């Protein structure tokens, strides 16, 4: 078995303390301050607007009304700083442990004892939407390289991501989304029994690896444009004994042959690319799926699925978290996007699925069957959409 790359991350006493505290700061901003902001809106801002005859008619009206409010300003500022600090808190540890982290990754790739592989394409042109700014304030994001065979950016996103979710009540397990989606697929499409699974925008595969537990016979492929994230991912998966074939490819146009997969997934991916790219990616999914194959994308709920206030809340990231395509992506109807990509209308779905780890099997089954309401996205549920290719 390959050495554990995560065990090479050895924070000092104080670095560890800082990382733990930043997790709490981020949770304080995203949950506690958010609640206070909502109360502030309900109890004073909205009544005030109403009294002035300017009742908000859209999330944009709410956003405009919030800009001058001190609670909104301090919430925003705390959230922005906490986000930066998640990644910054792990950088010194990664710098100090860099040589061990890198060595572990190289060894994992050379030995590949679990049977995974890594195929990089140094000539691949990185999409400008990935390189133009550091998405969600991760310096270097998943792709920037500082030295040969670099894994640093992959490590920053992976360990920084753990600080980010460290106090999040519904992301206690590392691959919470992959666990939830694989369970949903198994329940919803019991005849599918996928043998070839592709995860697009896989980063280091944390939400792909759980598919191995659910479908142990399936061959897993993960693609991403970021080489450091893929190198890190191979080491991560190899240590867990999960064979994953990672390759550096643009999901808009891959090198796989037609009908190569019977299940295609993604998570937290499509909102990061412009809608023109999303259209190409969904068309690519259609091409790559075998007849009867299924695609499931875990994403942010679309604008029409939630209230004006929630839209204001989600779209905050567009300007304030280096997520330029959030609003544009969320304004689309996922069903229309699938249908444009070639999927037949009656096979398309857009729904909430239960978070598997926090709900337990019974509740999860009831939610999937529709006998019980699924909690909202990010609060015990996850929003997914997708379709099944005709047989």
């Amino acid at each position: 078995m390959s050495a554990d790359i995560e065990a090479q991350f050895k924070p000092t006493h104080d670095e560890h303390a800082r990382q733990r505290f930043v997790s709490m700061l981020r949770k304080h901003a995203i949950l506690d301050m958010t609640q206070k902001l909502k109360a502030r809106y309900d109890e004073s801002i909205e009544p005030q607007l109403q009294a002035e005859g300017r009742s908000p008619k859209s999330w944009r009206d709410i956003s405009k009304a919030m800009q001058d409010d001190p609670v909104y300003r301090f919430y925003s500022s705390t959230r922005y700083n906490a986000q930066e600090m998640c990644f910054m808190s792990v950088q010194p540890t990664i710098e100090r442990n860099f040589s061990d982290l890198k060595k572990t990754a190289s060894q994992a790739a050379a030995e590949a004892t679990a049977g995974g592989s890594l195929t990089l394409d140094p000539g691949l042109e990185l999409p400008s939407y990935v390189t133009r700014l550091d998405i969600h304030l991760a310096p270097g994001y998943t792709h920037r390289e500082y030295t040969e065979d670099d894994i640093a950016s992959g490590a920053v996103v992976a360990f920084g991501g753990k600080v980010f979710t460290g106090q999040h009540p519904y992301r206690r397990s590392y691959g919470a989304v992959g666990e939830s989606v694989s369970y949903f697929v198994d329940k919803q499409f019991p005849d599918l029994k996928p043998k070839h699974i592709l995860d697009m925008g896989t980063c280091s595969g944390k939400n792909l690896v759980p598919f191995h537990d659910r479908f142990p016979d399936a061959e897993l492929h993960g693609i991403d444009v970021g080489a450091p994230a893929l190198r890190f991912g191979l080491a991560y998966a190899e240590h867990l004994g999960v064979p994953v074939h990672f390759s550096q490819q643009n999901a808009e146009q891959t090198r796989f042959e037609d009908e190569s997969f019977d299940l295609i997934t993604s998570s937290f991916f499509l909102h990061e690319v412009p809608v023109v790219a999303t259209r190409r990616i969904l068309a690519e999914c259609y091409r790559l799926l075998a007849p009867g194959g299924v695609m499931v994308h875990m994403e942010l709920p679309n604008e029409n699925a939630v209230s004006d206030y929630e839209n204001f809340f989600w779209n905050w990231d567009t300007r304030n978290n280096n997520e330029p395509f959030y609003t544009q992506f969320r304004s689309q109807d996922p069903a229309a996007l699938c249908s444009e990509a070639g999927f037949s209308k009656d096979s398309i779905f857009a729904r909430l699925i239960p978070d598997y780890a926090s709900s337990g099997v019974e509740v999860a089954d009831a939610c999937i069957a529709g006998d019980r309401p699924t909690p909202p996205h990010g609060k015990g549920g996850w929003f997914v959409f997708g379709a099944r290719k005709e047989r």
Partner: protein
Amino acid sequence: MDESSPDSIKLPRSTKGTRPSFFDDPSMDQMMTFILELTTEVAVLRERQDSLERLLDERGTLSRADVEAFRPDEDGEAERTQWREAFLERVLRLHVPE
């Protein structure tokens, strides 16, 4: 990057993209960063002191290496989590009714 060699690197402590300003005066945005960093430093110091006390309770003596290696057990970590939460409630006390 210049300072990077195959086995040692220096990662950027800033991000590419336009930094938003949430206040009328951008100095306030900068000030918030100072305050939150300082708040974090206080929490780290407090945790270090907590480690010293726990080690002294346990052994009556300690070395720097002991402190460096110290990580509390599950109960200790739960106590710290509670402290962090309460500390943030106090420091970031917003002017809103209960």
